[in-house]
């Protein structure tokens, strides 16, 4: 796996973890664990009135019991609910699976961190029940596990990703398809003309864009010029402004929700590609479109001193 592919799969994984919740999160976790551990991992399901005995999955070799908590991306986190779930689920597993449970792990998709109450509770459980080991498996641990899998497993779990060569040879037809999709059904006048404006070099820092999204925006910068050329050559001179309007509004909505930058970028990316398996050439085009909009300052904040100048 190249560093480029790793970055692409990281993005796909984040998209997946943000999209799945409840049972679908549990199923995705089971898929990952089965690929990692083969038949040593046993996914558990509730069986009628018997329930799942506080176990969503079990790793036989180490006696690890896993309990999943997949929060919906767009709902607020209720700390009390999570704390009570951990208490209840552990108590259930401890009482009903004493013969097989050696460790208890709470698996979650909380991207913005876990409440300190949860950490305190896990530590407290560890002190009170020294016969069991406790653990938390969040997005970072998920990422380590998933990205450690062979490439064929990654393709199965997350779909194919673009290679460096595909990124360098972006098909402008894909950009055309994406842009047409964005403006489809939209029948509003575009933004008023704006004075030409170059984005500040420190825009990434200003908006605190780090990690793989930073690398993607920088890496897709070359293809952003292809998008700019496509916009300039399009028969409709207003195309660029129409697309910019869609994304400026969407960015404003997401920013109002106080989402962190990577969550905003992930959502915008998914708005472009749609949900489901995304072909590599479309991934490349979507990243180029985001980089183009970012450089044009249609999404994310510009340096206030430059904006006012």
């Amino acid at each position, binding site marked *: 796996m190249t560093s480029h592919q790793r970055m692409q799969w990281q993005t796909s994984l984040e998209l997946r973890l943000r999209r799945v919740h409840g049972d679908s999160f549990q199923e995705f976790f089971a898929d990952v664990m089965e690929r990692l551990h083969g038949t040593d991992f046993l996914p558990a399901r509730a069986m009628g009135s018997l329930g799942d005995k506080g176990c969503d999955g079990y790793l036989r070799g180490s006696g690890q019991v896993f309990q999943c908590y997949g929060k919906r991306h767009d709902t607020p986190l209720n700390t009390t609910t999570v704390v009570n779930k951990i208490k209840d689920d552990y108590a259930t597993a401890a009482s009903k699976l004493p013969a097989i449970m050696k460790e208890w792990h709470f698996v979650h998709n909380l991207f913005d961190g876990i409440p300190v109450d949860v950490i305190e509770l896990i530590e407290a459980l560890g002190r009170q029940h020294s016969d069991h080991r406790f653990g938390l498996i969040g997005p970072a641990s998920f990422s380590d596990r998933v990205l450690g899998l062979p490439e064929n497993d990654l393709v199965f779990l997350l779909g194919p990703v673009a290679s460096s060569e595909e990124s360098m040879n972006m098909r402008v037809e894909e950009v055309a398809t994406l842009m047409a999709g964005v403006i489809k059904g939209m029948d509003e006048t575009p933004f008023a*003309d704006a004075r030409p404006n170059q984005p500040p070099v420190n825009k990434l820092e200003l908006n605190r864009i780090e990690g793989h999204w930073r690398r993607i925006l920088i890496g897709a910068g070359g293809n952003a010029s292809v998008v700019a050329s496509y916009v300039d050559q399009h028969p409709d*001179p207003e195309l660029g402004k129409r697309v910019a309007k869609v994304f400026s509004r969407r960015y404003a909505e997401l920013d109002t929700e106080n989402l962190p930058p990577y969550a905003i970028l992930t959502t915008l990316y998914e708005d472009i590609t749609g949900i489901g398996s995304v072909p590599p050439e479309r991934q490349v085009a979507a990243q180029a479109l985001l980089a183009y909009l970012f450089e*044009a300052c249609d999404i994310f904040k510009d340096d206030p001193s430059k904006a006012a100048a």
Partner: protein
Amino acid sequence: MILPGKHLSPHRAIVGVGAEILAQLDRPRDVSELWERVRASRATLQQASPISFDWFVLALTFLYAIKAIDESGGLMRPAEPA
């Protein structure tokens, strides 16, 4: 639309196209002749971007609205300074 912007190059902004139209009005010309001359002129540009006839007519209308051109007998000509 009228002025160049982040997503609209000077060659495609209405004022830019208007300037190209004015450059072709060294003598009175009809709309079809102007359109052909502007298209031919744009084709020689290194960064030529396409414009539709509708867009060209918008630029022409803009020039007329700001009293930069006059029309008489189907021919366009630069307006006399007031």
